[in-house]
């Protein structure tokens, strides 16, 4: 799965000379938490998050009068608060690479560039939705969690046993186990009963950690 398939295309952007009050208004209006910042030629020069702007805003307990505060905020420009030269990716970056970059750099969104042009933005929330899909969180079915030995052909044995029961796998994901010799597999199945499935997994000598209808 590539970034191209899940990014928001033609993201809302702002220019560097916009006051932060205006930037906050644009964020609220478009329900976004970060805005790529462009220069007058349309080149990407930074990214600014709602949090950057909130940290810069004086607390309501400030000794400034409301007029002074508005004056100050209207003078403070995005360019002073944005992260310059942000980390970017391309539409052909893998989704998990994008996720890895976000996790390793503790950032919540990445501008997507193609041929020097900003073509999209991908955020933690976009990746979060893919995660829901991966685990079939919105599908109905019987959800089994198995602890399996980390060895060749194990996945084939599981999926074959489910197919032989007439079950259809709606979602399947593998996780790291408690130690390097095991893995955890979560699988959501329809058209097979809980008893049948549990019996089949026991025949394969696999540990059923959890089983529930969703």
């Amino acid at each position, binding site marked *: 799965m590539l970034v191209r398939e899940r990014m928001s295309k033609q993201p809302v952007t702002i220019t560097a000379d916009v006051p932060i009050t205006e930037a906050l208004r644009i964020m609220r209006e478009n329900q976004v938490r970060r805005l790529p910042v462009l220069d007058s030629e349309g080149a990407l020069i930074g990214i600014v998050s709602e949090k950057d702007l909130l940290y810069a*805003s004086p607390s309501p307990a400030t000794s400034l009068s409301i007029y002074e505060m508005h004056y100050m905020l209207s003078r403070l420009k995005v360019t002073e608060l944005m992260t310059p030269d942000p980390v970017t990716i391309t539409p052909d970056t893998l989704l998990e690479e994008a996720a*890895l970059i976000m996790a390793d750099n503790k950032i919540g969104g990445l501008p997507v560039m193609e041929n020097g042009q900003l073509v999209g933005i991908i955020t933690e929330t976009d990746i979060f939705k893919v995660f829901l899909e991966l685990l079939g969180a919105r599908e109905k079915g019987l959800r089994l969690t198995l602890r399996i030995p980390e060895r060749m052909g194990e996945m084939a044995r599981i999926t074959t046993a489910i*197919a032989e029961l007439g079950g259809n796998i709606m979602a399947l994901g593998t996780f790291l186990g408690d130690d390097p010799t095991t893995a955890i597999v979560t699988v959501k199945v329809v058209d097979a009963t809980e008893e049948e499935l549990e019996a089949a997994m026991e025949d394969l000598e696999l540990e059923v950690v959890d089983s529930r209808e969703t």
Partner: protein
Amino acid sequence: MLVIERMSRPPSTIAREATVEDALSILAEKKQRHLPVLDAEENLVGIVSEKDLLRASHEEPIEKVMTQPVITVTEYTALEDAARIMADHKISSLPVMRDDRLVGIITETDLFLIFLELLGAREVGVRLTMLVPEEKGILASLTSEIAQMGGNIVALSTFRGEDPTNRMVTAKVSDAPTDKLVAIMEALGMEIVDVREG
């Protein structure tokens, strides 16, 4: 995979009588974005986010700015259910309860790390993305073929396809040559969308 396996415990908390300033300094120190709020009997009475705090004045008591009632999960909530609750309510952390006591917290970041695991982002192997026809037993034949050629599946996940007749499968496989893997998948009728080694 259940919440208990990935939650942080014990969570940092704040008393309801504390001030916004107190809460902000705890968040900065612990590098967190949320704090569950407890009363004197250690009952969970609310939750505050960094953003709530930034919008408030520093001297204000926590109970004035906290969100309540709080949406919570238990240790035995499935991780994807926790994720779905976060997505549906547009929140990024959930206190974890056991019999009315706060025992942990699970955040969007915890779930994010699991996502990386699911896709084997930190594992080494050939990574295949395929469009697979939506039919019973298709994953069984796919995984059997990989096993037969001596390949080891280190990560496997399924996504929604382009339409209801197909789905997208991402597999990371070690111990198998890329060209042979691709040839076998194509012979099975899979449409290879992307291949890369990583």
